């Protein structure tokens, strides 16, 4: 790799005019490097640019080569980022590429692209990420290689209740006692108005109760101050204030937390109880459909042919309880097991937190993450790991 690329405008990168003094270049370099601490790429490019422009010999050489490579009036030296018209040749898998850095020429863009690696979809968090680090930028999952976007087994377990704050910080509440406070607590809050030992939250059998343990500034649930040492039950969406910190309680879905009839959790090699396939069908109503009649997108069929449900655009719930659209009276199916989100041209399936999981093509779904359901694919509901 040569020291500089004459096609790259180093002066623009450092936001200085081409005739800038050494002091100005140095000053700008330091200023920008502070601003772009988080941006590894930009940081590296700033360092490269400074190296060249701070060395009189290198700078002279660069100026000479740049004048040949990019003959244009200096007055139009770019200051800050010009508007990015379109990302350079977005690959088909890219949706909504983050705005690229300011790029002088397409050549730089090509170099950038290869340096950034390939963009893939992370199998865990489903966001677009570059493979250059080897890890998903969003969730840190180790990406094996550019192409390997393999399915991964998801977790089978009930979701836990959690406290969420305005910034999006999540404090998961584990079964049993969770202490809340400023020092050595399970829910550790750094707000000085929170006592070192402020409150306790007990999670048991799906119910959540809270108790103030004698805090200085009090614990408030939906505006009401709690009497110390008196436990109070909490429900989903409750707003709890510890001193000056407000948190909201998020309870998991109504599935396997406190089931009236608990589903048995299967051991490893349990028999398949039911298999359903989704098959595409032509519209039931040939000819001119009336306005009220919705077109059928697909059919939900059971293996043994006993069930055949037409699916129109909308949401269908699947579970053991009779209140579901698709009822499967199988003890290994949760009360509310999964949902189908049907759109005019495709069907999505989402496990809503079932005990025993939902399997699409032998791969288990991550709870609460909607996955597209191709036609003709086996869906297994009511099978253990």
């Amino acid at each position, binding site marked *: 790799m040569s020291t500089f690329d004459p096609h790259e405008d180093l002066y623009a990168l450092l936001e200085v005019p081409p005739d800038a003094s050494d002091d100005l270049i140095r000053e700008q370099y330091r200023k920008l490097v502070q601003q772009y601490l*988080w941006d590894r790429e930009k940081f590296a490019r700033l360092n490269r640019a400074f190296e060249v422009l701070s060395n009189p010999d290198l700078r002279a050489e660069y100026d000479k080569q740049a004048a040949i490579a990019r003959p244009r009036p200096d007055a139009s030296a770019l200051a800050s980022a010009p508007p990015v018209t379109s990302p350079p040749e977005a690959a088909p898998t890219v949706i909504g590429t983050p705005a690229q850095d300011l790029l002088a020429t397409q050549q730089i863009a090509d170099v950038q692209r290869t*340096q950034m690696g390939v963009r893939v979809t992370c199998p865990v968090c489903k966001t677009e990420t570059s493979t250059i680090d080897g*890890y998903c930028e969003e969730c840190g999952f180790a990406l094996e290689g550019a192409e390997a976007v393999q399915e991964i087994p998801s977790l089978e377990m009930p979701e836990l209740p959690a406290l969420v704050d305005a910034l999006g910080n999540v404090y998961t509440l584990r079964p049993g006692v969770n202490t809340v406070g400023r020092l050595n607590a399970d829910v550790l809050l750094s707000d000085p108005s929170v006592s070192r030992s402020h409150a306790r939250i007990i999670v048991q059998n799906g119910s959540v109760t809270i108790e103030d343990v004698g805090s200085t500034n009090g614990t408030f649930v939906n505006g009401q101050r709690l009497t110390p040492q008196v436990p109070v039950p909490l429900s989903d969406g409750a707003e709890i204030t510890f001193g000056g910190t407000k948190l909201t309680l998020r309870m998991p879905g109504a599935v396997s937390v406190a089931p009236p009839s608990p589903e048995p959790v299967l051991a490893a090699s349990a028999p398949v109880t039911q298999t359903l396939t989704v098959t595409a069908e032509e519209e039931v109503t040939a000819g001119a459909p009336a306005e009220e009649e919705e077109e059928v997108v697909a059919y939900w069929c059971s293996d043994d042919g006993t069930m055949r449900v037409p699916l129109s655009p909308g949401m269908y719930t699947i579970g053991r309880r009779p209140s579901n659209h698709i009822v499967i009276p199988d003890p290994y199916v949760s009360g509310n097991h999964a949902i189908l989100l049907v759109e005019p041209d495709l069907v999505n399936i989402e496990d809503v937190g079932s005990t025993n999981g939902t399997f699409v093509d032998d791969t288990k779904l991550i709870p609460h993450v909607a996955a597209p359901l191709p036609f003709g694919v086996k869906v297994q509901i009511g099978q253990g790991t």
Partner: protein
Amino acid sequence: MDATQRIDPFGAQPTQQISPTADRTQQVGAGAPTVMGAPVRALQMECILGREVGNAYGGREHLLVEITGTSTGIGRRLPLNLCLVIDRSGSMEGEPIDYVKRACGYVVDLLDQNDILSIITFSDSVDVVMPARRVVNKTLIKEHIQRIEIGNTTNLYDGMLVGCQQVAAVMSEQVLTRVLVFTDGEPTSGIKDFASIVQLAAEQKARGITITVLGFGPEFNEELLASIARRSGGNYYYIQRPELIPEVFRRELELLMTVVAKNVRLLLTLPRFTQIRQVYGAQPNLQNRVVEIPQVDIERGAVVTQLVEMELQMRPPGRYRVAKVALVYDETITGRVERIEADAVMEFTQDVSRIPQSINPRVQREIEIQQLSRNLERTVLGLKTQQLSAAEVRQELERTMAMLTRQGRLQEAQEVQQALAALGSDTTVVEKTLMGTAYSLEVGKSKQP
């Protein structure tokens, strides 16, 4: 395994440009290789996780970052921008002020004409003995020092403020800035309250000014001085006898003259599923999932540790990077801003039998040291408020000394021993010594073994 990665900046990532001198000697455009022998880096970083295998259902884990200043002699040093802020209140009369004058004289001798010095004295009000300028006429400076006279009360706040103003006027990237504040008593005039004085230190830190505190004698407020040092990222010294004053000044100068990296900070970029629960011994800034943790200036051969506790949330099993760690600093020799990166990677599994029971011993050791530091502070407080009996304090200190010795922290073990020796005769020695010990343990700085 990524958890104990020693960073090779010239490794897999050619986009990561660092090399200062190597490229300069290349022919331009000759296509020569990027690296021609690795130049000396001011710092090295190592990231160690408590465990490398974690519970997919979630849990807590510690991350230890160890930063080492190179022990290679460089020959050049960064010029200093130093201000001596000297207490000349009534209590300093006699030996104390004489020794301080001598100490200031030593400082002048140690500096050269590239360094900038300013000298401030304070009692009721502030006197500028020498405004910030280069150390050229040493004789004249020493004459001015000799003319320092004893005053009355102690206006620490104004002294600190003016000292910081002096260095701020000439501060730049090309100098290493430090304010040395020497006092022997409680603030008795001007702004006296704890919170305001510590706040001043925090404000100056935000401007890039570090304050080192030197407390002399039995009367100064060790909690106040330790808090100033903590907020500022500077050092804390307790000087028991006047004849030791010059030596301590010299020690601080020596440290300043061997700083290899300043403006040091750790940046942790957190992915989803990772939250920071605790940052030990530092004041972090959180912005957009990046936690910035400022560190003290690092001298040649020094080792600084930063311990962090993470809250890891439930996720599908697999290998994950739980934090992207970046160390950014100003390298004093080249004047360049450098950056070192590392990945903290763990494997998450549902099979709890694969998760190790015990955590990495180095991480465990650092957790214990932080615990020791907290216990020490609590012990000092207990002693002062007499909630702990002398016997209880003795027992606690003996236990602490044993643990420090076992951990190899001999400097701190020795300080605890001195404190033990003074227990029963002079509690001020105990309090002031241990406050310094607790502080240095918390900051996590030690010499390279």
